[in-house]
């Protein structure tokens, strides 16, 4: 998730965005369940602000409105909810794989470029780390046996798994920025229990981890900064690997 765009929920909920920003945010909103929930709540809140300035309209308005709607045809209902693009699990064909790879690279690069702008001194370090990560990511994404595992609602993130490489790439969805003293930690869960698969340094950037032999599930939890030996909170992401 892009934390920057997420702060627009407030302005969006009360129609305080320009047309351009509004369209951009609506695109984001369609993919961000947390944002939709927040927008809905802030709209309820705004409705109360509006109700607080209630004023009786002129008496004539009621008969006018009731007469007018008799001449207006109603829209038919929507034909069911929009079907999400991804199902639970499916093998990737080469074309969609290329698209997924491009999207992941674009997300990672976009985020990195922004942070480099802010801190030019660290640009070189970040660039080499990025190149490294990019190479790993591309490796997993381009593996012949790569497959995508996603949530039903595909909100919190998805995995690309390659058994052949023994690696997985976690592509975060809409994880909120953790508190200053917390971090996201990745876990692989097998019959022996949970084993750390590393931290998620930035909740909007994809990471690659080794799978190991016996892992059955992949999870993400919020842990105190620096990570924990074992998960100490309920997973925010939990996906079966097979």
């Amino acid at each position, binding site marked *: 998730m892009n934390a920057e765009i997420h702060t627009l929920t407030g302005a969006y909920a009360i129609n305080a965005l320009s047309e351009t920003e509004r369209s951009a945010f609506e695109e984001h909103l369609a993919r961000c369940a947390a944002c939709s929930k927040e927008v809905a709540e*802030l709209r309820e809140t705004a409705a109360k602000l509006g*109700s607080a300035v209630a004023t009786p309209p002129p008496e004539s308005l009621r008969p006018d409105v009731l007469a007018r709607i008799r001449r207006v045809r109603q829209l038919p209902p929507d034909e069911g909810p929009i079907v999400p693009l991804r199902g639970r699990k499916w093998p990737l064909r080469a074309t969609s794989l290329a698209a997924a790879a491009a999207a992941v690279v674009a997300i990672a690069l976009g985020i990195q470029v922004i942070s480099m702008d802010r801190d030019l001194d660290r640009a070189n370090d970040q660039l080499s780390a990025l190149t490294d990560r990019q190479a790993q990511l591309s490796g997993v994404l381009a593996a012949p046996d790569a497959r995508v595992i996603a949530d039903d609602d595909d909100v919190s993130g998805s995995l690309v798994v390659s058994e052949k490489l023994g690696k997985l790439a976690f592509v975060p969805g809409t994880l909120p920025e953790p508190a200053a003293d917390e971090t996201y930690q990745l876990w692989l869960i097998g019959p022996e229990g949970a084993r750390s698969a590393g931290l998620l340094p930035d909740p909007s950037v994809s990471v690659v981890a080794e799978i190991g032999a016996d892992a059955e599930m992949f999870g993400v939890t919020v842990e105190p900064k620096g990570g924990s030996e074992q998960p100490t909170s309920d997973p925010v992401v939990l996906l079966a690997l097979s």
Partner: protein
Amino acid sequence: MHAAKPHRGKAGQAGLHAVAPAAPEETMSRVARGDEHAFAQLYDLLAERVFGLILRVMRDPAQAEEVTQEVFVELWRTASRFRPDRGSVVSWAMTIAHRRAIDRVRSSQSSLDRDARVAAGQQDRPFDAVADEVEGRFERQQVRRCLGTLTDLQRESVGLAYYQGYTYGEVATLLETPLGTVKTRLRDGLIRLRDCLGVAK
């Protein structure tokens, strides 16, 4: 508090919906099936809020009346698209009303007037112009109290954006505050109001 209105007689005469006011969601689903009596009930539930908000944003009573009428026609036309799982009837209607009022004030001449006001640094505070105390006293007091828990910058940002229809960019200009600050104050302020007003899911 919106139940006993003098002009609900029509439904009463028909003897159909005279018992107790139905839940708004139930009324909506009847409106979606083309029930004009249900729509009259919806009007009675919403008219003062919708008109009050539009008047607050637009200032001009004649234009506010026109836009209120458009909003109710839109509520009728799009009733089948209302999704109870996405929010309350009141929230749905007020969002549409606010959007309409804002679209109107941001277009053409009224927008020029507003630009002039922005340039002249004229603004007013959320509740100074609220004169009548007809109904919704409790709701109004609660909102007033909760607005009092915000910081000055949060309250001014929310007031200018919501009640006067300024974009957050315009609010930043008016308050001589960086854009990013206004953006976060708007969100923080609304979140604090949400928690204070007990709006949660």
